[in-house]
Structure formats: structure tokens, C-alpha cells
């Protein structure tokens, strides 16, 4: 038995490794191992107040901290019968766009692009690709700036609370975000062109089922109370356990998910496959230029899907800011934190994190948490990742047998497959149902 081992996956968040076992010139087994240490978050929130939950859960993962906060807020507000005002929704949408821009540009440019251009990291690309690296940093900084202004910090900002906001940013700070978005629009467009013209390897291609949240309006968006599946169904998020079916596996501290006993995919690629037709303006044009049927088979197109989402956000921000600033005084009044009435209830809330659908579920009894569950995008994607690794390993092994080249490129392709899912391994470990 021969083993190909990639011991420490680089340019991903957290710790993972890949083992491919080969015997008699055939791939026998593929294991995506997650040794990341458990932190038992779902037990830490028990006995806490809803506002303390919102302090704690963003710490599951820094790069999707706003999404964790937002998912928890949605779940708790649904459980406690607090109605989100238009004003609060607008500010939350803006902070969520900030995270999408930051996280998608971090992943596409700093974590994924070096593979396509043949570098170990993005800083090393500066000599030859300075404009691209500087563009990446400008976009990333803009995403962080939005989170700083709305949530009071780049990461784990506490301003977004259950029931509303502690404070609303000044008109001037909001208009500054709008102006930055207008200035950065060419950067977002050039980013799409850069990623459209990359060479995407095909050795891992295999058709997949996709899922994402259905936005409440006809537009593209990142929240919703039902899930669209590429097979055509629409399922309310209350049925999230039936959609995800978590199980424990021996070789990983992260649980696994499947739907109808098959892997499925969440994230930017799923959103583009299911919602791409809803885009408007330059983002719609970019989608039409870039989209092909390979997007249902090839996870590497996640990178291209992510940069189209950056363009979508940058294009929408001026419209959103104008809307907030126009009714500014009402926004200030209407986004004040509403206190829950009874303090007892249970419900699920979901948002699209940059890397896919994120569910939070809470049971609250007289103001304290008695039950919790969180289902994380990376956990949902692990089976699909393993499938794509297996297909790539089989195809590359087959190609190696019929040429003198050997399997030397295999490691890079396998790593690119995992990286394309933008995995968040801290997130994926230990997040589970409590009875």
C-alpha cells in the first residue's frame, strides 16, 4: 500500500491533513483528517443570556465572526419574537457585505491565487504581480473598514446586538463608505477579469448538489428563512437537521454532513449556481461572461464566484448607504436595541457565511439558554471535498500510469481542491447538537 500524505494543509484557516491510500494502482481510500482541538462551544453557551451568546459565538471563527454573530442574532430574535426593523436590517446587511468583501478577497487573492500563479504565498507575488497584490489589500482593507465602522472592530466587534445596535455610525462615516465603494469599483471589476482568465485544472470534476438560502426578495443576497436545493426543492430552515444529517467520523474532530446520503456543496459556488440569475448591473454582466456548466462540477470556480460576489457587494453598497443616510434620523431611532418580552422560546436562524450556509439554533428559558446547535458550512462541505479529492487522485493516478510524469503534481491539485472550498477548520470542529 502506498500513501500520499499532505501532513499540514497550508493557506487554510485551522489544521487539516489529507491521506490518499493507493494499492494495486488504484485509490483505495481518501481521508480528510481534522486534528484541530475541540473547544465545545455548544456547551459553553448553556446557562448564558442571549446577549452573552452573541459575545461568545463569534469566537468560533474569526474570518466568519460577523456571520456567526448575525446567525445567532437571527435565531435568538426569532426565538424571542423580536422583529427586525428595516433600519436594523439595512445596517446588518452593510456589515455582512463588509465581511463578504474581506473574507472573499482574503481567500481568493491571498490563499488561493498563489497556487494558480506558482507562488508559496501572496507576499512573494509582489515582485511580478504588484498591482494585483495591492488591489487585493485595498479590497480587503475596505471590507475590514466597513466592519470597523458598523460593528466597532475588524473582528469580533460587539456593536451588532440582539434587538438592534448600540450605536449608529455617523452620516459622514457612512458616506465615506459609499465613496470608497465608488472608488473601488474598477478594482472589483479588474479582480473578476483576473480570475476569469486563470487556468482552472479539471481533474477533480464531478457533479454536485448545491444548497443556499433563498433571499427574501427577488434579488441576490445572503440571508433567508428557507433553503434552495439544486434538485429543485425549497425547504424551510426549521428542517435544517434533515438537510444536514450530522455524524461523527473517527478520523476527524469535525463532524460530517450529507443530504439523501450524498455529499452536497454550500458557499459562493452554490450561491452563484442557484442565485446567479438574480444579479443586476455589472455583477450580472460578469456572471454571464464567466458562467459555464463546469461550475456544477468544478469546485475551483468557487474563487471566481467569490470575486463576482465582491463586485456585487461593492456595487450595492452605495445604494444601501444612500438608503440609510436618506432616513438617517429614523434609522437612529429604529435601530435602538429592543428588549425581548417574555424571554422564553426556541428557534433556528441562518445566514450565508462567506463559505456557505450557517445555522444557529437556541432554546431559551426565562432569559437563559437551555439548548443550542450550530451547523457550520465547512462541516457541510467535508464530504464533497473528500469526493473531489478522490476523483482528482484517481484521474491523476491514471494519467501518471500512462505517462512518465509520475504523481508529482498530485499534491498541489489535491491542496487546491481543499483550498477552493475556503474551509474554516476552527469552525468545523466540535459544533454539534445538544439534546
Amino acid at each position: 500500500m502506498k500513501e500520499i500524505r499532505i501532513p499540514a494543509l497550508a493557506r487554510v484557516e485551522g489544521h487539516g491533513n489529507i491521506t490518499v491510500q493507493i494499492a494495486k494502482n488504484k485509490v483505495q481510500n481518501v481521508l480528510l483528517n481534522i486534528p484541530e482541538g475541540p473547544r465545545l462551544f455548544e456547551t459553553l453557551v448553556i446557562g448564558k443570556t442571549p446577549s452573552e451568546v452573541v459575545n461568545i459565538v463569534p469566537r468560533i471563527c474569526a474570518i466568519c465572526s460577523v456571520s456567526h454573530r448575525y446567525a445567532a442574532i437571527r435565531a435568538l430574535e426569532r426565538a424571542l419574537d423580536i422583529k427586525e426593523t428595516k433600519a436594523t436590517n439595512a445596517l446588518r446587511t452593510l456589515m455582512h457585505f463588509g465581511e463578504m468583501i474581506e473574507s472573499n478577497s482574503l481567500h481568493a487573492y491571498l490563499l488561493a491565487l498563489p497556487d494558480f500563479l506558482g507562488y508559496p504565498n501572496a507576499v512573494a507575488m509582489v515582485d511580478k504581480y504588484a498591482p494585483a497584490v495591492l488591489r487585493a489589500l485595498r479590497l480587503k482593507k475596505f471590507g475590514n473598514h466597513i466592519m470597523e465602522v458598523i460593528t466597532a472592530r475588524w473582528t469580533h466587534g460587539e456593536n451588532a446586538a440582539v434587538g438592534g445596535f448600540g450605536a449608529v455610525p455617523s452620516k459622514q462615516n457612512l458616506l465615506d463608505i459609499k465613496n470608497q465603494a465608488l472608488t473601488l469599483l474598477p478594482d472589483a471589476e479588474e479582480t473578476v477579469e483576473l480570475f476569469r482568465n486563470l487556468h482552472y485544472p479539471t481533474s477533480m470534476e464531478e457533479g454536485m448538489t448545491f444548497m443556499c438560502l433563498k433571499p427574501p426578495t427577488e434579488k441576490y443576497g445572503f440571508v433567508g428563512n428557507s433553503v434552495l436545493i439544486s434538485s429543485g426543492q425549497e425547504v424551510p430552515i426549521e428542517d435544517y437537521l434533515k438537510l444536514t444529517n450530522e455524524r461523527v467520523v473517527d478520523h476527524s474532530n469535525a463532524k460530517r454532513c450529507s443530504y439523501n446520503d450524498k455529499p452536497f456543496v454550500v458557499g459562493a459556488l452554490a450561491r452563484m449556481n442557484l442565485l446567479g440569475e438574480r444579479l443586476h448591473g455589472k455583477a450580472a454582466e460578469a456572471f454571464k461572461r464567466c458562467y459555464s456548466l463546469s461550475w456544477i462540477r468544478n469546485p475551483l470556480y468557487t474563487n471566481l464566484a467569490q470575486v463576482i460576489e465582491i463586485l456585487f457587494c461593492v456595487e450595492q453598497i452605495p445604494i444601501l448607504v444612500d438608503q440609510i443616510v436618506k432616513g438617517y434620523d429614523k434609522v437612529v431611532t429604529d435601530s435602538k436595541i429592543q428588549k425581548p418580552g417574555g424571554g422564553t422560546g426556541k428557534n433556528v436562524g441562518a445566514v450565508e457565511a462567506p463559505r456557505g450556509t450557517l445555522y444557529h439554533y437556541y432554546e431559551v428559558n426565562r432569559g437563559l439558554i437551555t439548548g443550542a446547535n450550530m451547523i457550520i458550512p465547512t462541516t457541510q462541505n467535508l464530504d464533497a471535498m473528500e469526493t473531489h479529492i478522490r476523483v482528482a487522485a484517481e484521474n491523476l493516478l491514471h494519467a501518471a500510469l500512462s505517462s512518465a510524469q509520475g504523481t508529482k503534481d498530485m499534491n498541489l491539485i489535491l491542496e487546491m481542491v481543499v483550498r477552493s472550498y475556503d474551509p474554516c477548520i476552527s469552525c468545523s470542529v466540535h459544533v454539534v447538537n445538544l439534546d
Partner: protein
Amino acid sequence: MAEKPKAGFYNLSGCSGCLLTILNCEDNLLDIFNGANVVSFLMANSANIEKDLDVAFLDGSVTTDEQEEFVTELRTRTKKIVCLGVCSCYGGVQAMEYEKNTWPTRFKKVYGAKPPTITKPFESRPVDAFIPVDYYLPGCPIDANQFLYNFARILRGLPVDIPRTPVCLECKWRENECLLLKNIMCLGPVTATGCNARCPSVNLPCVGCFGPADEGNLTSEFNLLKEKGFSFPEIERKLRMFGGVKFVNKFKTIWKKVKK
């Protein structure tokens, strides 16, 4: 020119927010990578070399046997070990139940009767529970400016310089109205500063994410909050959230005083 100091950036059990904060220093990122010879940074780089280091930065706490072995080995080849964030400094939010003996039950609840065998996990502890640590930069996550200032100091062989004062100091500088006067449970008086009083500046109480301040008066905060009608378990629960092992150890010494 003298050789650049060799630096490594590592991640244990945590949210990676402290390493992300470094990658979020967009205006200084190229300088960070130019100022030191960054030989290992798994989150951002795929060509990493594990060798003798002048300085290692650790994000996250120790929660598995593999991580314990790793930090022990890292100590033998590293001149200065720097803990980034409350996870590596004090155990982090995952250590909020430290010494309450709830970990085995909680672990079983999450993973069921047949847990994965890939590592041997245990309750979160800070890095200095296993190896001597040279410097601590607390925060959840660390503050970017505090990091950049101290990164430059460390590269020049100077010790870390962080304030010993609580959040209240910066809060007063920002001329915020005191939330304790409005009977809101704010941990500002006992929490290490360095965040620029972010939360009180948006009318929200300090949750203690920088961990206990060296010069904070814990006994007085307890008494003040009790006077305002907060219960003892409520106050302890809040302080444990980010204070972790450092809070629990401090707490032992004041426990008797407070009980009186």
C-alpha cells in the same frame, strides 16, 4: 546588514482571529514580512520550514496532546515565545469553565459515546501551563496597533510594552458616559486596556475580552456590582468568559475578602 530575525506564526485551538488581525494590517503587511524572516506561517504560506527561531507567535490555547508536544518542541528551538490573544495567554473562552470539572461531561455531550480518536483532547489551558512564555499580548482578538508597536520592539530585542491599566482609562479619554452609573454591568474597571474602549464607545458594556488588568481592583468591582444588585454567580460568569485561567487564579486570592 545584520541577519533578519527568524519568526514563526502558529495557531493552536482558537478562532485564528489574532493571526487574522496580523493579515488584516493591510497597510503594513509587506513591512511585517520584510521586517522579519518569516519562516513559518501556515495560514498564509505553503513553503514553511521548521527550524530554530528567534521569535514564535502563538494564537490559540492548548487542548490536545499533539499541541502539547508541539509547544514543548517549539520551546527547545525558540528564543522568545509570544502569546497572542486571550486563548494562548489565559485559555480563552474555551477555558471559561476552568477547574469546574465539567469538561468530561461536556465532551461526551458533544461527541457522544464514540468520540473521534485522532487526538487526545483535554480542557483548554494557556500555553504557559506547559512551557515558559516570554511575552503576552492579550485581547480577543489582539489590537492591531498594539501588535505592530510590539512586533517592531521584539524584532529589535526590546521587551513587550503593554499598559497595566484598565479599560476605564481609555474610556475616560474618549469622554464616554460611565455605564456603571446607569447600572449596566461593565467590566471596564477590571479589564486590561489596549482596545481604545471600543464597546463603551458604542454604548455597550465591556465584556472583558482583553482579560484581567494587572492594576484592576477586582474586589472593589465585585462589591460595586453587588451593591447595584447583581448576583455573585452572575458576576463570576461574566468575568470567567474571557478571563479564563488568569481570572480564576486571581479570584482564588480575593474570594475570602469578597465573601466577607
